[in-house]
């Protein structure tokens, strides 16, 4: 089942001499439950692609369909609603709200939607991510790895159709990075989620079901991997 479909995406920054084509005619499809890793060198356009796919940065041309809905044909308000309900984001710099506790940060997308959180589900997420004894802590009381685990929890809270992760382990040491990714993968399986992840790390990319390589804004390789 197609969760994400991108058609002929083009993203151009600047004009004339300063013109930069960040994404150049990219089309791709992601199916439910897939774990897709996007890899490429710095400046290759992978973050831009992720932001376009996630509905936060409009492409110059092309369209993005999440769950069959054309994201950029929607007005800002509706696009916000779509993001909060169908998309989860995990950033390299965690981006937690410093004023909210761990639990409150996780529940945030639900709160924005005016939904009452399903406590059992939230507890399960917290448990899965190993944050039971950190529920009432503020982000500045957590380690980097713990903060990223909260960010994962937040991305899962609303049972989104797809999660986008922008180098989620980039700010973590190797041990913590793998631990976080392990938890992320475990969570995906447990909660049957789809993940599109950007990474530099080959080993992390190898954990994905599919690896898309990007160079100069173009897909140069789309490899489906078979895991034992």
């Amino acid at each position, binding site marked *: 089942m197609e969760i994400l479909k991108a058609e002929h995406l083009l993203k151009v920054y600047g004009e004339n001499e300063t013109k930069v084509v960040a994404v150049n005619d990219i089309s791709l499809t992601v199916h439910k439950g897939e774990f897709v890793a996007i890899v490429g060198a710095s400046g290759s356009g992978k973050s831009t692609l992720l932001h376009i796919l996630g509905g936060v940065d409009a492409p110059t041309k092309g369209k993005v369909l999440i769950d069959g809905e054309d994201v950029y044909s929607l007005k800002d308000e509706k696009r916000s609603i779509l993001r909060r309900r169908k998309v989860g984001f995990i950033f390299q710099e965690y981006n937690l709200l410093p004023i909210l506790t761990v639990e409150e940060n996780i529940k945030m997308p639900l709160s*924005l939607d005016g939904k009452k959180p399903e406590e059992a589900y939230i507890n399960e997420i917290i448990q899965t991510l190993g944050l039971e004894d950190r529920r009432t802590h503020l982000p500045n009381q957590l380690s980097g790895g713990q903060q990223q685990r909260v960010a994962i929890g937040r991305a899962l809270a609303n049972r989104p159709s797809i999660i986008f992760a922008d180098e989620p382990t980039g700010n973590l040491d190797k041990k913590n990075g793998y631990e976080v990714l392990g938890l992320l993968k475990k969570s995906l399986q447990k909660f049957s989620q789809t993940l599109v992840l950007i990474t530099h790390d080959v080993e992390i990319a190898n954990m994905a079901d599919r690896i898309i390589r990007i160079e100069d804004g173009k897909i140069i390789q789309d490899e489906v991997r078979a895991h034992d």
Partner: protein
Amino acid sequence: MINERKLAFKYLCKKKRRSLSTLFAIALSMFIVFVSGNLIMGAFYASKQAELIRNGNHIAYLEEMNLEQISALEKEGVVLCALENSTYFMGKMGMEDHEGSFGFYYFEDFSNFPFYYEVVQGKTPEKPGEIMINEMWKYFLGEDYEIGDTITVQLTGMELKTEPNQESVVTEENSITRTYTLAGYYRCPEYSWIEDGVVMVKDEPRKEGNTYRVYITSEEEGIEDIESVEGFEEKEDWARNLGEKYGAKVEVNWLFEKSQSEETAMGYCLVLIFAVFIGGFAAIVIRNSFVISIVERTRDYGMLRCIGASKRQIRKIAFYEAVMLGIAGEVIGLIVSYLFLYLVIQIGKEHISFLEEFKFVQRPVLIFGICLIVFLVVLFGLLEPTRQINKLNPLNALRNQKDVKKEKFRVKRRRGFLVAKLFGVEGEYAYKNLMRNRKRFITTTASCVVGVTFFIGTNAAFVYSEQMLEEPGIAYADYNAELYVHSWCMDSEDSLKEELESIKGISNITFCYQEFYRIDNESLKRKEDGVVVKTNYVLALDEGKYPIEKESVEKGEIGELKPGECYVINWGYDDEKKEIVEISDVSVGDKIQLHELILAEDESTEKTISELKVKAVLKEQPFANTYSYYPVLVMSKEGFQALCEEQGMSYEEYGKIHFKMDKNCDTSKVQELADKYGMLFFDEMKDAREAAEQMKMARLVVNAILILVALISSVNLFNSMESNNILREKERKIMRTVGMSKKQYRKMILLEGMLSVIIALILGTALGLAFGYGIYNIMVLTENELKFAVPVESIVFAGVGLTLLTVLSCMGGMKEE
């Protein structure tokens, strides 16, 4: 569950210092506007209330109403305050035949009397034929009259009615004598219509055929509080319709005329303008606070947008923050204002005459109106932040680098050589940092300049005004009070003087006598225009007791004055033909012909009396009189005594005591002494003291408002410094990494604030002095020799105050980082 409200609250709690500073600005604005509004409307209603007391609480009166009409009025439910039948005539009252003009007011009933008065002795008339006399007359009637005595009144001289409904004409030949029972003495507030020379008589029951002036009101209990009066249009129309219906002439008490609605509205308009002015200031501060909050939370908002928060939701967070701060600020401001006003009124009443009649205005329109304005100001302060939220791009917000990019280009081109020379490298950096956002720098400096200009300008005007009040002849006169002495107490001159001397702060006690005479200028034989000086002040001094300085002698010599000799004070005055007449060309040895001063206008009845020989011509008036525009003749006590005897008068009747009271003198003790001896006490310093007190009060209020506005502005400065720190956090870290010490960093930040202040102080002082000089030039039109004074204290105060505020703001802004 977390929602926008909770998020807003959490944000407010997170940044306690900023929240508190914004809360402080809102509460302070509320305080300034509410207290000022209350002072404006309080003074407005107090003056109206005082007028209500003076003018009576009736809405109108109907003239010439007969009994049938009065009865119909009562049946309509109209409340009749009083039925009056008044007359006014010249006459003599009392045993000693004291002559004067007085009005007789006949009233049916004193229970719902439409005018304010206090019974100082006895009671109000209760039976027909009882009379209540203004206490002013007590002095003339003397001690021989007691309550319950019969008082004889001889009516004469004017063609007016002498009792209710009597049409007879009373002339000199046709005088009427009536007797009344003295029921009591009353006192009225200043400027009241029944202040002087009026007696009030209990009238006989309503008589058939009589007509009355009927005072009416629509309220059962009468109107006691002008503030509670609403619907002036209806009240005036109501009274006029009644008049029309009964065919009677209506006179509406001006306090209840339609125009009063407009006056009240104007009062509120004034409050509104002031509120908008202060609100404008507050809005800038609040706006800056919110903008900084948004700058600070750009990343948070960006993340929220990424995970699906709509712009509306983000705006809502800012809105709820504003609402929470607004409500809390208003409540705090209101409570503090109430406490402040309560304390000021309670404590100040005893010390400041201005507050004696002050009313604490608690009208919903004022309270809710001001709350609404302040709340709108808070929302207005939210406009720019909301615009920024709308422009917020989630990705840029996450990267939080937009502002940094924008700044790069500007900084390159600006250098601060002069500042660098004066304040070193920190000064140079401070200057460059300020030039990054030139608009903000200019706005901050300009607001400081405006504040300093107003502060110094108004204080220069106040210093000058205070000097005017202390001008020689007003505040520093050798004599500034007088007691009109009775003949019976002149016998106890020594003990009176002793008692007066025992009162602290009294000096220069001098007994003298005075009366008015006419001087025929022709008798000087030096004026050819034949102008007759109508009235002249003849002053007799107990010789040797009034210290005439030799310097004040223009011609002749001072020394012992014999009967028939006098000094003439050189004094110009306006005569009837509006020409300036001077008797300065009087020579020593000239003779001045006096005429007896009588009330009749017919000059042929003037009696020529003694001549006086001029012994000396003086330059200045005795007793530092500044109010007399007549030439003054000075003679000895014996000379005056002889003059009075010649006319069959008793010289003791004209006795006066002049003396000087200093600032510490308790005037109530002098009044007690005056009451004891039945003397009239005139305190010439009273007006000057009141004026000085009002001036001090006005200066205090203006300065307090300017200082409070400066405090609101300091929140702005604090916010600016804090936002600078937040925006330049990375730069700060770099500077610290490459070797900038904490001290250097602090100096740089301090200089950023101080550069604005230094410029503002230089420009503001110059403009403020120019502004003050402008006011001086307008005021100097009234003749005086005072020079423009530079308000040094205010300049120092502005400098120290502004520096202190800046240092505190800079330090406060730095600390959190």
